[in-house]
Structures are given as C-alpha cells and as structure tokens.
C-alpha cells in the first residue's frame, strides 16, 4: 500500500486554479522529487501535503488515513524550507530541539536525539552558536537536523539548496542522498533544478502549470519522455529541437537531411510537420546520419566541448564533442544514431 496518496488534489486561490487535479502514489521509503519551472505549483503541492495550505478539492491520504483536515503536526511530516526558517534568537541546539520541547518530551530523550542528529550532520561543534554565526551550508544542516530529531514518517524539502552557492549545492546534494540511505524515510523533495532531480530521485514527478506532465524514474524520463516539455526539461544541456517534414511512413527530413526511422511504431502521415528532438550527447557519434551545422561558439569544458551551431534552416543546435574544438563559422558534420531521435507531434506529444 502506498504511504502517501493524492487523489485528484486541486488548489485554487479564489478564482485562479493553481493545481488542476493531481493523483499520485508514493511508496514507503521512496525519494520522490517534484520538478518543474518556477511557478508551476511545486511548493503549493508540497505545502498541501504538509498541511500549510488548504486542499481545495480531492483527498490526501498518509498511511492510509485521510489527512485533508488534520493539523500539520498530526501528519507525521517534517519540513525543510528554502529559507531554512531557523529562529535567530535560539542556539543551534534549541532550534533543533524546538519541536520536541514544544510537545513536552522528556529532557534526556531530547538531549539524546539532538546529539544523534548533530553527529549525523557533523554539527556537534556548533550546537551553542546562533544561526547568524553559521555559514549557509551549516544553517541548511541545522534545518535538516531540526527535521531529523522528530523522526518523521515523511521528510518534505522545499528547494533546500537554492540559497547555496554552486559548489556547496553539489556537496549538500550528496549529503541529502546519503541521509536518505541512512534514514530510509520517505522523502519528497521540490526543486526547479533538473540536475538535483536526476541525481537524487527514485522517482521524478515533472510538473507544469499545475499538471503532472510525467512520472517516472530519472532514466525513464531521460530515455523515454512522454512529451516535448519533459524531453526539454530533463537533461543538460537541453534536448535540441528542429522542425521536420514527414517524407514517408518512417522517414522525415530535417533541414534538408533525410532521416530514416525504422524503429518507429507509428506510421507517419506524409506531408505533415513534426518536431524532431535529439540530445547534445547523442550528436557526437562517428557514424550514422550526417547533419551539417555552422559553428557559432565552442565551449570547452575540459573533457568535453559543447558546440553551439545552426542548421541550414537557422535553428539552433548544441552538440557535445570530444577532442579538438571547431572554430566559429566552420562547418561541421555531426553524426547521430537515428534510434536516439525523438519525434513529437504539433501538440508536443511524443510519437513513438
């Protein structure tokens, strides 16, 4: 049985609908990431699960119990906020023990739980400090520690790493992954950063404008996106898209280049327009379909180079390359395996 179940959950602020009916099942111990562009309703959805936002319609069940009208503290959840939400007037230890103190737990139990959480998060040295005397990463750890001491059934994270610099973000990402391995609690994690989603998630929920676009493991979403939005959102640099003309049931033409797609299950209608997608990392094959581009810029990142170029039609393409970087205005022949091509119809839906 699923630990958390959303059944056609909706949210509206007055006349504006923000969440348009989301159904989802989350298993015990799963690490689920809600990802999507800013403003798509990720935080709203998470806050409805936490009980900070009223659910306009639909049902929320946690552990088989309907939770729509329960107090946040009765839902067995703990939340880590983007702003950390630490109390500036309390020491690290007091911040971490706040929930336990408020619910009147015995002193020695509090001390034991705080010291255990502090050792997991390497906060022992900092317990007497105030939040203002901590770095961003340390504050983040205290915020996580405050969640850990309550030993919740479900951890909720709302963009916990957004306020950190790039290097620290990578480091904390690894720590959160480790934490999930150690604690094995269910975690729901909200981010707009697809890299975070890909690296952390057991399962990713891609949201757009209050609708679930696709749910799946990181690899499923990467390999087999349901639509152009997911294809473009997952993966970095993002997937290249180009207009394509259908020239046969399993053949298309992109910028004057004929591409045969023998693996396609659907028969295409000749003469229609579709959208052709290919990832930058699939454009550095030695053989396969040839695609000429004119180089605009080559970004050298050490092991790889990203070539930014344009097709004959003027459409922009990014291609990954190993070895020497081409110079601007060079014409380069890219090669790719047609099995890596993804087709989308006029509505952006995947043609398989």
């Amino acid at each position, binding site marked *: 049985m699923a630990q958390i179940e959303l059944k056609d959950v909706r949210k509206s602020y007055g006349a504006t609908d923000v969440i348009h009916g989301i159904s989802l099942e989350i298993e015990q111990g799963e690490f689920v990431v809600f990802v999507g562009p800013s403003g798509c309703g990720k935080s709203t959805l998470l806050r409805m699960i936490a009980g900070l936002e009223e659910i306009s319609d639909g049902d929320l069940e946690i552990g088989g119990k309907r939770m729509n009208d329960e107090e946040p*503290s009765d839902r067995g959840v703990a939340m880590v906020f983007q702003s950390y939400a630490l109390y500036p007037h309390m020491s690290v230890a007091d911040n971490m023990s706040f929930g336990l103190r408020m619910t009147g737990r015995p002193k020695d139990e509090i001390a034991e739980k705080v010291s255990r959480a502090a050792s997991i998060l390497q906060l022992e040295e900092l317990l007497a400090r105030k939040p203002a005397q901590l770095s961003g990463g340390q504050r983040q750890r205290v915020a996580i520690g405050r969640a850990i001491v309550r030993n919740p059934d479900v951890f909720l994270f709302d963009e916990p790493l957004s306020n950190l610099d790039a290097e620290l973000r990578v480091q904390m990402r690894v720590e959160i992954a480790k934490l999930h391995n150690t604690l094995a609690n269910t975690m729901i994690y909200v981010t707009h950063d697809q890299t975070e989603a890909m690296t952390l998630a057991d399962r990713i929920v891609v949201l757009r404008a209050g609708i679930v676009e696709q749910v799946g493991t990181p690899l499923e979403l990467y390999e087999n996106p349901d639509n152009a939005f997911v294809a473009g959102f997952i993966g970095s640099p993002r997937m290249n898209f180009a207009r394509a003309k259908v020239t046969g049931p399993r053949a298309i033409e992109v910028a004057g280049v004929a591409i045969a797609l023998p693996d396609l299950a659907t028969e295409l209608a000749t003469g229609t327009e579709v959208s052709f997608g290919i990832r930058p990392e699939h454009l550095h094959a030695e053989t396969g379909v040839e695609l000429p581009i004119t180089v605009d810029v080559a970004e050298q990142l050490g092991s790889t180079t990203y070539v930014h170029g344009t097709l004959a039609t003027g459409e922009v393409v990014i291609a990954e390359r190993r070895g020497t970087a081409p110079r601007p205005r060079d014409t380069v022949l890219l090669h790719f395996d047609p099995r890596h091509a993804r087709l989308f119809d006029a509505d952006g839906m995947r043609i398989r």
Partner: protein
Amino acid sequence: MATAGKKEKRVLWIISIPMAILALSCVYPVYFALNNALKDNRGYILDRFGLVQNPTFDNFVQAWTRSNLDTYFLNSVVTTVGAVALLLVVSSLAGFALAVLRFPMRRLIFIVILASLMIPVQVVLVPFYQTIIGLGLLNTRTGLIISYTAFFLPFSVYLMTSFYAGLPRELVEAARIDGAKLIQVWWYVMVPMGRPALITLGILNTLYCWNDVLISLLVLQDQRTLMVGIAALRGEYTTNVPLLSAGIVLAAAPIVILYIIFQRQIVSGIAVGAVKG
C-alpha cells in the same frame, strides 16, 4: 563624502543655520527649567534669566513632600507601567493574529483598527467618560490603566501587525509543523522576534502615558497623576516658577533616564514603523 566641494560646503552652512535655531529652541527650555529649579523665589524674581547664584534643592524637597508629588509620582508609575505592560501583551497577541493567522474578516478588523487611529481622543471624551462612570472605574488606577490601553491600543496593534507581517511566514509554519501550539508560537517565536518593535512601543507608550494630562484628569479626579499635579502647581494669579520648574525636572527625570538606557533601541526602533503593512 570625504571632501565636500565648495558649493556643497556652502549648502551645508545654509542648512546648518535653521538646524542650529531648532536645536537652541529645544535646549533653551531645558536650561530654563534646570536653572530656575535651583533658585529660590526671590532669586527668580530678581533675575529671571541669569545663571543661578546660590543653588538650593529646597524646591525639590518642597515639591516632593508638601505638594504631594510623591503620591502623584506613585500613581503615574503604577498606571504607566500597568498600561504599557497591558499594551505590549495585547498588541503583540493582536498583531500575531492579524498578520499571521487566517480567519474570516481579518482585513475588515484591521481596517476598523486603522480607522480608530484617526479618531482624536477629544471627539469621544463624553461617551468615554460615561462609560468609565458606568463601569464604576472612576477614580481608580485600574480605570486609568484600562483607559490608556484603550486609547493607545490602535496604534500599537497597527505597528505590531505591520512588523509581524514583515517577518518570514516560514518561521511560524515551521513551528506549526513541529507541533507548537498557537500560544507557544506566540511566546517562543513571535515575542522574541518582535523585540525591536516591542521596545519601540514600550518607549512610545511610556511617553504617552507618563505625559498625559487629559485622560488622567477625567479618570483619576481625586488622586492625580504627576503631570496633573504639576499643572496644579500653577496658581491662578501667581505661580511659584522655581517650584514648578523643580516639579518639571522631577517629572522629566524618569523619561530622560529611560531614553539614556534605551538610546540605541530608540534610534533603530524609529525605522520599525516603516515596515510594510
């Protein structure tokens, strides 16, 4: 601005003239009161404006004992402390509710409170007086404490509401998820977080209550607070100016001491009112 240009210097000079006049006009009454409080009546009549020749503290002793300023002082302290304490508790509770909690008609309630800010005391004096009599609170310190609280509450609630509205919501939300009851959120989060605003309010309200004459005159008719007592030192035909000056110095002293203690908070607190509402 390490080196002011010639033009800027001239502008600074021009600005400094009215500022200096303003400063003098503030300082002069202080000098006048202090100076004359140390003269005897004869010395004052002979030389009103000159510096005191034979300083004496008789005026202070006389004001304190024979003119009953000691009892008036006690009345003032009790009513001011009582009212300020009540104001702080009520306004921080109300500010918490209005800024953070969601309940029906909270905007309307806030607007009503704002509107009552614009009603001057004088307009409601008659119904206020009748209410005080009706409640049997006439000539009681409790009555005066409640009256001060009522009159200064709208501003206090407004200030606390805007201050709390400027705090991040997540602080309260985190506490709610952690299982804190509303009253615990108030006591452990809102009160400590509201410190700067509460200190500002404490000082302002102390000043209002301490210096009030009008409300006190109505409610505490047969006992008097300090300010009323000092006003009564003025005779109908003649006034003992040195005695009055001594009374004024005595009355101002606690406020001055408060200012010295809380100097820094007052300056930083002035900005508190400018938080969005």
